[in-house]
């Protein structure tokens, strides 16, 4: 039985006071820590998925939507661009562009997106094959690790893709034997883990085939079409000034599959992910503006758009954080009130402790300790709430966005949260502790 233990016993002898302080403090800390956790994990995910991509080129529309769709795979495409328009950027001898990776989106399997592209997408995310091989033939697919794990797919399995990005049965394509899984990638921790990779031509074929069948789906709601791209698809008017004609065909490299995208100028893709040779080059910096002004396509810089997103979310986050701080303040006040009011009942007790040999500083310490304990208990409740909340959100984010968040990531910032709580506990207990320090034993006991 020492003073710390006595503080604890004093606190649990008043369970309602404890509960009130705990719940208030828990809510405040919980909300703050939840925001910290969410912010950290989202930023981490977003940053990891930036993958050194300097510019994304796609159909005109919302640049943020285009970035979210083509880099983070969480929004719908802004539309399509014709290969003919994209061709100049696919030229390996382009003076500014080191790498241009074409993406064709629009289909999914059990809401995991199927991406028609070439093997250089792996270099962006540091992906490598774990089992099997990379996709080469049409209708061969290689799965990101999460896809394989979550859907329990293995090499040799086949599946039919479905329209759009939702898992809806009546939008499933009937295309021969469908896609065949030939390989599974090693985990990268990036969005690559969530993708099903195949050839560009496979994506075209799924849809071309359907057209032959008479198109049992309304093509207007097809992802390839849904963002009405009539204005850029029907012809190629008015950008002769831009350096793209047919001269460059022989310069384009055939990819691993022996397939050369620019041989199909009338086909469409969703976007190009561009990596510059030198991202500080002045011409490179002005390339997006040139594209936006002179073509029917748009170009957007991922870091700029993501920062824009952060600043948009930031307002809400700031408001929430302020509310959380307010709750923390109120809870500090509740600790103060609860300690202060308990002093009245405990005056005799405290005087008695002095009689038994406790110094003034011991009583001061006792009350401060009670403040600290109340705050720490509340803090741990708050941390628990935030991690559970994060885990709940993780489940939701996984179902809706295929985003892997977790409630069981602990940050060192949380240590600061505990330390901050201790400080708040001390401050809240300061005045009651000073009162206890000043207890006049003679007067109290003579009453």
């Amino acid at each position: 039985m020492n003073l710390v233990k006595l503080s604890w016993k004093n606190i649990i002898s008043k369970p309602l006071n404890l509960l009130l302080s705990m719940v208030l403090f828990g809510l405040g800390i919980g909300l703050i820590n939840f925001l910290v956790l969410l912010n950290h994990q989202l930023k981490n995910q977003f940053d990891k998925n930036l993958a050194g991509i300097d510019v994304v080129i796609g159909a005109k529309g919302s640049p943020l939507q285009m970035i979210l769709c083509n880099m983070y795979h969480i929004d719908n495409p802004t539309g399509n661009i014709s290969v003919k328009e994209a061709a100049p950027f696919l030229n390996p001898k382009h003076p500014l562009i080191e790498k241009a990776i074409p993406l064709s989106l629009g289909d999914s399997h059990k809401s995991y997106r199927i991406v028609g592209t070439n093997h250089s997408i792996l270099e962006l995310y540091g992906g490598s094959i774990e089992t099997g091989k990379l996709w080469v033939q049409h209708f061969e697919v290689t799965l990101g690790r999460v896809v394989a794990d979550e859907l329990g797919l293995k090499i040799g399995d086949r599946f039919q893709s479905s329209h759009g990005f939702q898992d809806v049965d009546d939008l499933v394509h009937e295309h021969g034997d469908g896609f065949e899984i030939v390989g599974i990638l090693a985990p990268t921790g990036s969005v690559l883990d969530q993708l099903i990779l195949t050839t560009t031509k496979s994506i075209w074929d799924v849809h071309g085939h359907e057209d032959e069948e008479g198109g049992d789906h309304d093509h207007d709601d097809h992802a390839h079409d849904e963002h009405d791209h009539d204005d850029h698809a029907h012809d190629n008017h008015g950008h002769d000034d831009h350096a793209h004609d047919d001269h460059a065909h022989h310069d384009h490299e055939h990819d691993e599959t022996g397939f050369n995208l620019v041989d199909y100028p009338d086909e469409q893709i969703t976007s190009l992910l561009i990596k510059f040779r030198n991202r500080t080059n002045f011409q490179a910096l002005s390339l997006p503006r040139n594209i936006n002004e002179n073509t029917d396509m748009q170009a957007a810089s991922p870091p700029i758009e993501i920062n824009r997103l952060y600043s948009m979310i930031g307002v809400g986050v700031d408001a929430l954080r302020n509310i959380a701080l307010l709750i923390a303040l109120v809870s500090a006040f509740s600790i103060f009130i609860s300690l202060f009011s308990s002093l009245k009942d405990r005056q005799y007790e405290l005087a008695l402790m002095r009689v038994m040999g406790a110094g003034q500083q011991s009583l001061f310490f006792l009350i401060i300790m009670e403040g600290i304990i109340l705050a720490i208990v509340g803090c741990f409740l708050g941390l628990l709430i935030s991690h559970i909340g994060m885990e709940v959100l993780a489940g939701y984010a996984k179902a809706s966005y295929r985003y892997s968040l977790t409630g069981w990531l602990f940050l060192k910032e949380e240590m600061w949260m505990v330390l901050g709580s201790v400080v708040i506990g001390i401050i809240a207990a300061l005045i009651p502790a000073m009162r206890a320090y000043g207890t006049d034993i003679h007067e109290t006991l003579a009453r």
Partner: protein
Amino acid sequence: MLKTENLSYSYNQKDWISFPDIHCEADTSHLILGQSGTGKTTFLHLIGGLLQSKKGKVIVKGTDITSLKGQALDRFRGDNIGIVFQQAHFINAISVEENLMIAQRLAGKPIDKSGIKDILGILNIEHKATANPKHLSQGEKQRVVIARALINKPAVILADEPTSALDDKNCAEVVGLLERTAKDVDAALVIVTHDNRLMDYFPNQIRLS
């Protein structure tokens, strides 16, 4: 064991109350009698070091406690003086046993569970060791208070109206226990009271006026 010399006290620095010099050896009992308002509690608090006067001396076990300050006084009191108050107060959040442990701890002594068991046994309330003091009867409470005053084997035991809330039977019992246990630890017992029932028990009487 306990000696006072020329002790007087003033609440307003004008009117001084003077107290008689007393001298109590170990193993002796003294009764200090007086009507309300004669400064009984003030005297007891001065002797117990709960109140300090600028005039006079209080010597406990050879130490003039009027010269002690702050923590040193608190420690000395916890160590050498056991006080039984009129009303039985405890730290209500903890059990009887733990109240005695905290008394040991606050006096800077090691926690001695068998000592606690012994003293509760002597006072016949061993079975209430783990009970919360709130749930004890008046007589039981008074015994725990005595146990707490004795637990550190003080040189002096001071009792302030220890029997005023008790009926005759309990009164006799408590007085008997106080006297006997004080002798057990070789302490000087000083009882401050206006309870005339006690006059028969204690031959050494000092009257305040």
